[in-house]
């Protein structure tokens, strides 16, 4: 019996390792290519390992495009979107979960409707709005569409519903008003939900491509995703440098993910359960 278990485990591992290799191969190839010089990368037959490690590719690419600005813009965008969406969604989620107020169903419909609609529908008028406000080409423009979140409200509402009512009732009996109940009792108890939403919002902000492309025209206002698009235009043939640029763009998020992967995974898993 033991022998049987061992061999089936082995098969499982083999399959998983093959899959893992397929997942990692592009990343590995990205790193390897970024360290080659141009001629090396375009010689046939292809060489796998670079002869010398051309770190200068990274320096060159960094100097060609304002990566520092890309980073700052991306971080600002992520930061403000997270603060806004988490805070506002939590407030609204608590109200929907725990307070029975007139018009509740109607307002919740607004949330549900928004969740079913693809985001591109809103883009043209949002663009016109931002343009009329004179906010084109600013970081503010990057932040605005992500400040409130229907999805976040929906998600956090699920979390709030799961908290036992006794805790709230005790606080109310103690004389707390709704805001205090929310702030002091409910919020601390939904930490994992808040973290999950924060993670979702940041990753989505980091990956957002179309919006930054259309509202920010000048390079130094672009976040990483849009900046990368312009990188491609400039370097369409120098692949090692393109790969170096890609590495610069993705490694911060990869590191953050690897450090916080428990929270990431729990956050993602919670969105699928009983929605």
């Amino acid at each position, binding site marked *: 019996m033991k022998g049987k278990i061992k061999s089936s485990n082995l098969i499982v591992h083999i399959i998983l390792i093959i899959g893992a290799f*397929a997942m990692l191969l592009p990343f590995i190839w*990205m790193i390897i290519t970024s360290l080659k010089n141009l001629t090396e990368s375009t010689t046939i037959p292809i060489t796998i390992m670079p002869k010398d490690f051309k770190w200068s590719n990274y320096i060159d690419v960094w100097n060609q495009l304002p990566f520092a600005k890309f980073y700052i813009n991306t971080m600002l965008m992520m930061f403000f979107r997270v603060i806004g969406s988490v805070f506002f969604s939590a407030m609204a989620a608590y109200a929907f979960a725990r*307070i029975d107020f007139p018009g509740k169903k109607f307002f919740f419909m607004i949330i549900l409707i928004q969740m079913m609609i693809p985001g591109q529908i809103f883009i043209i008028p949002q663009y016109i709005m931002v343009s009329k406000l004179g906010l084109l080409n600013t970081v503010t423009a990057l932040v605005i569409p992500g400040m409130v979140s229907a999805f976040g409200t929906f998600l956090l509402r699920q979390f709030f519903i799961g908290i036992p009512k006794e805790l709230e009732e005790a606080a109310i009996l103690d004389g707390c008003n709704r805001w205090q109940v929310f702030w002091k009792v409910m919020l601390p108890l939904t930490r994992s939900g808040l973290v999950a939403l924060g993670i979702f919002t940041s990753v989505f902000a980091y990956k957002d491509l179309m919006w930054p492309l259309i509202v920010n025209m000048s390079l130094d206002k672009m976040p990483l995703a849009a900046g990368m698009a312009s990188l491609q235009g400039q370097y369409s043939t120098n692949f090692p440098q393109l790969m170096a*640029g890609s590495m610069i763009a993705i490694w911060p998020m990869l590191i953050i993910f690897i450090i916080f992967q428990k929270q990431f995974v729990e956050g993602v898993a919670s969105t*699928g359960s009983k929605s």
Partner: protein
Amino acid sequence: MIKQKNTSKRSDKKLKVSEKDLNDYYWAYFMIAPTIIGLIILNIWPLIQTIYLSFNRTGDFGINQWIGLDNYKQMLADPIVWQATLNTLKYTAISVPIGVILSLGIAVLLNSKIKGKTIYRTIYFLPMVSAPAAIAMVWRWLYSSDFGLINYLLSFVGVKGPNWLTNPKLALLSIVVVGIWSYLGYNMIILLAGLQEIPKSFYEAATIDGAGPIRQFFSITFPLISPTMFFVVITSMITGLQVFDLIFMMISKSNAVMESTQSLVYLFYNYSFVMNDKGYGSTIIVLLLAIILLITVIQLKLQKKWVHYE
């Protein structure tokens, strides 16, 4: 702290709404205000505006002119739009089933008693946290017909690798592969969470009854994971129908395969922001909205046939 009395100072118990309730209502409105107001300004009103725009032609200075259903007539007769719709549907029809089945397979494997689950999880999820722009670039390089790794590896088995991104028949499929690769980890984690909720005792009882692993999968695993599967399928379809980033980054504008690859959202972007015809762009995106709503409704109806609810 003052104890809240559950009576109001007015004509008391006959009043349906107590002071405490009113207080609650004020708080409730206050707390939903930012989100609701935000959603109305940023989403509901723009939704109406986009639909309105689709009935207009946007002129040279952004001046809109009402043209009624002309945009729609033009769109329905436009072969480019039909092709893009086909491309989008093709992309979704291929990437979703394959992607979800692969994700389920990996999730089932990860659900077994093996070590190193965390490492596997992390590795499979990496594509999801990487900027699509960067992913597109490295895949473009992998797919390169002369210098790409894929064709190089194929040459070892004596196959001359095709032009993955310049052959009209292959380009869309090449992008499908990248799409599946990107979302595998994400779907897997959601499915894994669903699998972990299935009590082990079910499997133990089935084993005692003599059911093999395959029988167990179809009798226990599949029905119990079907709600989660349903969620994953629907979200994957909606995401798939909106495909844009990968196409934008992997297929250059001058590439002849563009016509057999571009998606509806890509067309939308092109018309609205490159060619500046926001009217026609709006029409296209309204079409996508209709398609998404239609498919979602169909899925919701179909779920009664295959999704098992407790």
